[in-house]
């Protein structure tokens, strides 16, 4: 099994520790992932801004970079969702189809490919889980509250398996945080207000560590937490899981 690590551009530049944790966690689970150095971005920022055509060279670059691997794993459901759903704009060559199917969010990969449902280790904190829309509603990694009241998903299962970890019961389990890519600046007012409301839900219900599997939402929420100087630590799930697994 040849596994490539895709580290989205903003993680590469601003959250290298998340890329490192992803790599190390995979290694502990027995997967030696390789980081092809020529990778850049999945093109989503452009496409979501209405410039899909300008993103096509980026899509092609992505496919060329990863077509030789069995799996492409990324600590970001949003990028994976984009590759799977929106690379339909490319000619559907065998390589393109392969890469679209091979792209996995890290937690999805751990859960469905490696079939790991629990991890040994302790994390004695109250953890608030932010369900990112693209992972949840897009990739169905957790149940949508629009469909069913069952509040379970891949990441909550993994987190609950850790000793001492208590998951925060939120008032709104899966409301969007308001990041939305370029939305966060083009609709900065609404975006901030959505983020503040999401953070307030965590504060109200006692979250000490705020986590999730999509760093873009967490970057936005962390920006709000730090601006308000709240006593909440924001960590990508890969950092928590990698930290507890020996």
């Amino acid at each position: 099994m040849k596994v490539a690590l895709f580290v989205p551009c903003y993680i590469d530049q601003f959250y290298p520790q998340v890329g490192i944790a992803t790599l190390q966690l995979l290694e502990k689970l027995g997967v030696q992932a390789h980081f092809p150095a020529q990778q850049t971005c999945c093109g989503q920022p452009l496409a979501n801004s209405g410039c899909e055509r300008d993103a096509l060279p980026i899509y092609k670059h992505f496919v060329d970079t990863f077509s030789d691997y069995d799996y492409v794993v990324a600590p970001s459901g949003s990028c994976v969702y984009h590759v799977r759903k929106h690379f339909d704009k490319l000619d559907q060559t065998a390589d393109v189809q392969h890469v679209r199917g091979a792209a996995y969010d890290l937690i999805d990969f751990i859960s469905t490919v490696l079939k790991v449902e629990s991890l040994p280790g302790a994390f004695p904190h109250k953890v608030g889980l932010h369900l990112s829309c693209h992972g949840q509603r897009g990739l169905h990694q957790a149940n949508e509250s629009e469909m069913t009241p069952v509040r379970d998903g891949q990441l909550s299962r993994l987190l609950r398996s850790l000793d001492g970890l208590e998951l925060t019961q939120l008032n709104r389990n899966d409301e969007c945080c308001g990041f939305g890519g370029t939305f966060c600046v083009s609709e900065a007012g609404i975006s901030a207000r959505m983020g503040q409301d999401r953070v307030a839900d965590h504060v109200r219900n006692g979250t000490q560590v705020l986590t999730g599997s999509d760093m873009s939402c967490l970057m936005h929420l962390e920006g709000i937490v730090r601006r308000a100087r709240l006593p909440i630590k924001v960590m990508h799930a890969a950092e928590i899981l990698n930290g507890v697994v020996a």
Partner: protein
Amino acid sequence: MSHAIRADKFLLDADRTTWHDETLWFVREKRDRAAYGVPEFQELRELASGIKNHTLSRLDLYLQEFEAAAQANGVHVHWAADAAEHNAIILDIIQQQGATRIVKSKSMLTEECHLNPYLIKHGIEVVDTDLGERIIQFRDEPPSHIVLPAIHLKKEDVGDTFHTHLGTEKGESDPQRLTEAARQHLRGKFIAGEVAISGVNFAIAETGGVVVCTNEGNADLGVNLAAVHIACMGIEKIIPRLTDLGVFTRLLARSATGQPVTTYTSHFTKPVAGKEMHIVIVDNGRTQQLGRPDFRASLKCIRCGACMNTCPVYRRSGGHSYDFTVPGPIGAILSPNIDMKKHASLPFASTLCGSCTDVCPVKIDIHTQLYKWRQVLGEANEIPAAKKWSMKFMGRVLASTRVYGLGGQFARKALRLLPHGLTHAPSMNAWAVARELPEAPRQSFREWYAKQPQPATQLPNPKVPA
């Protein structure tokens, strides 16, 4: 003016924004409980979507079937290509009656066609008889929601409005007393009404009848007291058979307000002896939308409003921020079809979270259509030039590994070295108005990785199950 600018105005009153958000979230939660309570809810959605897709695929045939059946029932059927024709037809019917007093129950179509100002201009008195509609009519405001037209108003606002227009006591905000005042006021209007106008929720091709769903019974009261009933419908309101109706009535009220069914589901099939019934069938841009394969499915909409209640943007920006008859996510995919330039910012007023798609009872792929409208707008140069050019620039940077690496290094260094006041200046950085920027690390992931002892590349992973 863009959605973002209008949204910022709404956001200025933070407490009111909280109240608006929580009020609509309450409706969304009621909807959830109602949906969870029906085990076959997802099958119903699938069925409703299928019936609508089928109907749209042969809309011309069903419309003709409907017209013939309605005419056989003794109903006058009129066809209107656009809003102007719709309004002219209605004025003509009213004038032939020599009538001047009109009672109207809720109809988004007549809002879309701006019927009220048109009739008033011609000396006709139009009274909206739905309570929410009447409130905003007094205030001369458009509806801010398609099911809850006055949801942007608090009971104190209604008290002020009724004090001015109905003479209730100043400062009265008791909902019971305010409703009673409206009831007394409307009763007189109902009795005086000469022509009743209603919308249509469903038009049944097989029977030629129309179905109107209300909670207040105002459509029945108006229609039964007046000598003439005019029902106005968009071409997409058709369903094939009477037996299909139950699928939709089970979904409509549950999705809209969490009720099992609307209080009144009124069937109007033929005129009472001695009275007249008219149906006006309106296109007004709908066939154009039908001709757009990517956006056709938007015509499946049954106007339940669930996508508004669930939309985290709508709840915090208010219906008026969309500046279109139908606000919220569905409005954002309908409006560019009508005027792409004017409504260019609406498809961008979304995080593409997808909640609207998941909540929609007829399974319209709303967030995918938002994404697709963005591409149409981008191609048509209807997005801000600065955005367009920065995206073109980014496209080139991100298609090249080397340029990307250099740019990243530069940005991080700048972020580390420049003073906080400059990197976070609100005028230069919209992100930083309410958020801190991430702390810039000294090395990127790729710089770190390059320094690691490299594994003999890409060995098969022995520990992983095949």
